[in-house]
């Protein structure tokens, strides 16, 4: 297997060569990928917001943002600046502490989950053994934030929205986890790196989407519900609940919910591309291309190129999925709360269980194709 570029190793070695002790060198390295990931996540908000506005406009024959920055790319920055300068109002008789903590609890786990998103063989903050399980665990914290925000707002719509959000989150977590489990069953490991490596080899034919089509659809539906994207945006259903748990929020606290939802969308798209679309792998394996061109795989230029190709591929796949969600947003009407729970408990849960059983059976029968 191609080891790829080891940024950490080379960075630490360079610092040691400069005369630093190895412990200090590693400590200096530690915050760098985290900071980079924070920046990537924050920039992804701007890209997502821009895409959302532009694609929505395209679907409705409008132009969308045009004047803020080149082709309206800085619209999200303008929105953010506006939110920062707005008055931060705490409603009367609300619970100021819970009111302030709620949005933070929604946002922090989403950012933490970026720990396990890989962009290349070594381009990941930590290759945890529990990998994808960490994401599932962290995404289960968000409902507490919704409940907190809904409860503390002293508003019946907020409370209802918070309860709905939490109910939706916990009911779609189960099919989500079960479809992840089917992928994990084929990988023999929870690590995101292992999941991608198991799919590489046959180019796009080896991607999990061919072996787990049902799992892919279930995962995508559940991820949309977890992100509270349309058609599952019931917690903020404006016709019924004003804006759900966000009703009483203003300024940057409201902005945090906004940030959380867009980063969560991006994160879900990245995870889908890792789980089902081969992560950073190019549709034609890089090994085949280098073999055809007669270039050594370990040449530094080739390694650099394949690493950047990996990052670009991951992002392209993720943004394609974001595009699909936005298209879905303008196609499918919002479901009712009973339809939502019906879909979650009576359709997705049994189907994902059957999918898991089938995967286990296929794994035993065809170990070469379904990961022995």
């Amino acid at each position, binding site marked *: 297997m191609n080891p790829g570029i080891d940024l950490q190793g080379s960075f630490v070695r360079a610092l040691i060569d400069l005369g630093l002790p190895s412990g200090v060198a590693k*400590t200096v390295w530690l915050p760098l990928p985290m900071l980079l990931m924070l920046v990537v996540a924050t920039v992804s908000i701007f890209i997502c917001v821009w895409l959302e506005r532009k694609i929505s406009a395209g679907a409705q024959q409008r132009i969308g943002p045009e004047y803020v920055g080149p082709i309206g790319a800085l619209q999200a920055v303008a929105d953010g600046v506006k939110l920062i300068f707005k008055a931060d109002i705490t409603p009367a008789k609300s619970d100021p502490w819970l009111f302030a903590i709620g949005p933070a609890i929604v946002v922090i786990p989403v950012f933490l989950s970026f720990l396990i998103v890989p962009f290349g063989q070594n381009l990941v903050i930590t290759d945890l053994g529990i990998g994808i399980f*960490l994401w599932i665990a962290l995404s*289960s914290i968000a409902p507490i934030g919704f409940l907190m925000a809904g409860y503390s707002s002293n508003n019946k719509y907020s409370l209802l929205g*918070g309860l709905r959000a*939490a109910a939706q989150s*916990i009911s779609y977590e189960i099919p989500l986890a079960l479809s992840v489990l089917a992928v994990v069953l084929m990988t023999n490991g929870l690590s995101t790196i292992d999941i991608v490596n198991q799919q590489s080899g046959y180019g796009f034919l080896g991607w999990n989407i061919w072996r787990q089509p049902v799992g892919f659809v279930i995962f995508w539906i559940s991820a949309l519900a977890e992100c509270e994207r349309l058609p599952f945006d019931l917690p903020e259903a404006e016709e019924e609940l004003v804006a759900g748990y966000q009703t009483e929020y203003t300024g940057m606290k409201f902005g945090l919910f906004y940030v959380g939802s867009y980063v969560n969308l991006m994160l879900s798209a990245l995870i889908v591309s890792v789980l089902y679309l081969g992560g950073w792998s190019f549709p034609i394996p890089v090994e085949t291309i280098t073999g055809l061109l007669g270039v050594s795989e370990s040449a530094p230029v080739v390694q650099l190129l394949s690493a950047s190709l990996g990052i670009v591929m991951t992002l392209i796949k993720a943004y394609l999925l974001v595009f699909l969600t936005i298209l879905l947003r303008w196609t499918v009407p919002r479901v009712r709360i009973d339809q939502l729970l019906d879909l979650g408990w009576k359709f997705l849960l049994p189907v994902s269980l059957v999918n898991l059983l089938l995967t286990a059976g296929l794994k035993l029968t065809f170990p070469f194709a379904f990961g022995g």
Partner: protein
Amino acid sequence: MNLAEGVQFVSLVILGGLMIFSALGVVLLSNIVYSAFLLALTFISVSGLYILLNAGFVAAAQVLVYVGAVNVLILFGIMLVNKVEVFSEVKNAWVGKAATGAVCAGLFGLIGTMVTSHPWAISTAPAAGDKAIEVIGQHFFSDFLLPFELASILLLVALVGAIVLARREFLPDLVAPQQEALTLPERPRELVAAGVRDED
């Protein structure tokens, strides 16, 4: 003490303090919603302690099960119950309090003797690290098979019970019919044997 150990020590102190104070808050605060939220904090600091012990899987499972499921359900229960009861003096309330105190003291004594009697010898075997999941799985399906299966049967029973409760169809037009003890208002419904369905 090198840097890593220092970080570990500081995290241990912070997590331990958080856990103790939030647990005290769960018990002592009069607002039940605060107690529930602080319970989540307690669980999260416990999971932090697991991470310090190199048990990543257990930590994540702790967050998923206790914070993501149990605590959310507790919060749901608190927020959906809307019953305001007037405080009324209970006769001989001290009996209950005394009984609670006795049980708590007994539990404390039990745990205390366990703490003092346990050898607390640190295992010399290397930590499983990322392989911990496999070790846990092997234990589940060999020497801990019985408790594992018992737990799943318990969950199945709870699931069936929840379905039975949820499937009940209330009769809104009947005004408080005379009930026998331990029955719930329910539309009479003939039981259909599983697997056999009448033609329709």
